[in-house]
């Protein structure tokens, strides 16, 4: 059975890009347009991997990431962050969130800065999925 990969991004073009890469490489893609919708799908579908954007309306990728990484049942699902935000900025923001009383969270398995080539995304997914 194909492994399920959830793509969480508010930009339909980026979702289409990731979904195409996933389908071409034999995965079963699922889609969500924001963190709130994404978290519901994570709980319902238990995907094998998540490709997550950071900046999204309604609920950011930061919140979804932090909720997942502090939830016993969800923390082991690997996450590839695919964002226009620089990695160092994201990591600094996470450190600040912890400073402001949040639970510490590990760094994401992989952090890719947009734009990314389809080959690089496919290769990264394969690597993370083992």
């Amino acid at each position, binding site marked *: 059975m194909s492994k399920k990969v959830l793509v969480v991004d508010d930009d339909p073009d980026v979702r289409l890009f990731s979904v195409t890469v996933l389908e071409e490489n034999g995965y079963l893609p699922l889609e969500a347009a924001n963190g709130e919708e994404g978290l519901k799908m994570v709980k319902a579908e238990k995907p094998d991997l998540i490709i997550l954007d950071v900046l999204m309306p*309604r609920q950011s990728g930061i919140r979804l990431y932090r909720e997942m990484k502090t939830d016993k049942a969800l923390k082991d699902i690997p996450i590839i962050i695919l964002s226009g935000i620089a990695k160092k900025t994201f990591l600094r*923001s996470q450190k600040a*969130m912890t400073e402001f009383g949040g639970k510490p969270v590990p760094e994401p398995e992989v952090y890719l800065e947009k734009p990314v080539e389809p080959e690089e995304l496919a290769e990264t997914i394969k690597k993370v999925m083992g």
Partner: protein
Amino acid sequence: MAVITISRQFGSGGITLGKMVAEKFGYSFADTEVISKVAEMANVSTHFVETVEKEAGGKFSKIIKNMVSKSLVDRILKDERGYIDEEIYLDYLVLIIAQIADDGDVVIMGRGSQYILDDHPDAYHVLLINEFENRVKFMVEHYDLSSKRAQQVVRAEDKRRLNLYRKLGKIDYDDPHLYHIVLNMNKMDLHKASKLICSMVES
């Protein structure tokens, strides 16, 4: 590529000083721009963000969080396409300040930036303090307010500052150890303060 954060007791001249320092170095000045960016990310109006910020930890946010569903809020605020509450505000605030700082050459006004950028290698953190009476006087002189109105504004902003930092779980925001320099604006004018900050950054 320096980043200068200015925290202040409201009415100490922080915005005026921040603009002076930014102009001297040719840096950008980030104050209301931060709110605009939060609004842009959350897809809501700047007014909505300002309300959440002003009421951080207060009645408005508690109502939203505890009693009212998002869909009801959406109906009440039907002109808003997105949504924001304290948690979302904080997510974006932290990210935006981190991003503005990483872009560099900027003076950032408050909003917890001294904590967010605590270990930023290029950041200088400044705190301005002054007596309540002097801060009221500053507002009267620089913002054309009556004395009574200025007192109300300073008190309201002190409360807003307290609430915001409470939301961030911080009460030590006036602790000098957080800052590179603490300027007592009771003892110097804005030009002297600007010179001190500039020479610190240039050295």
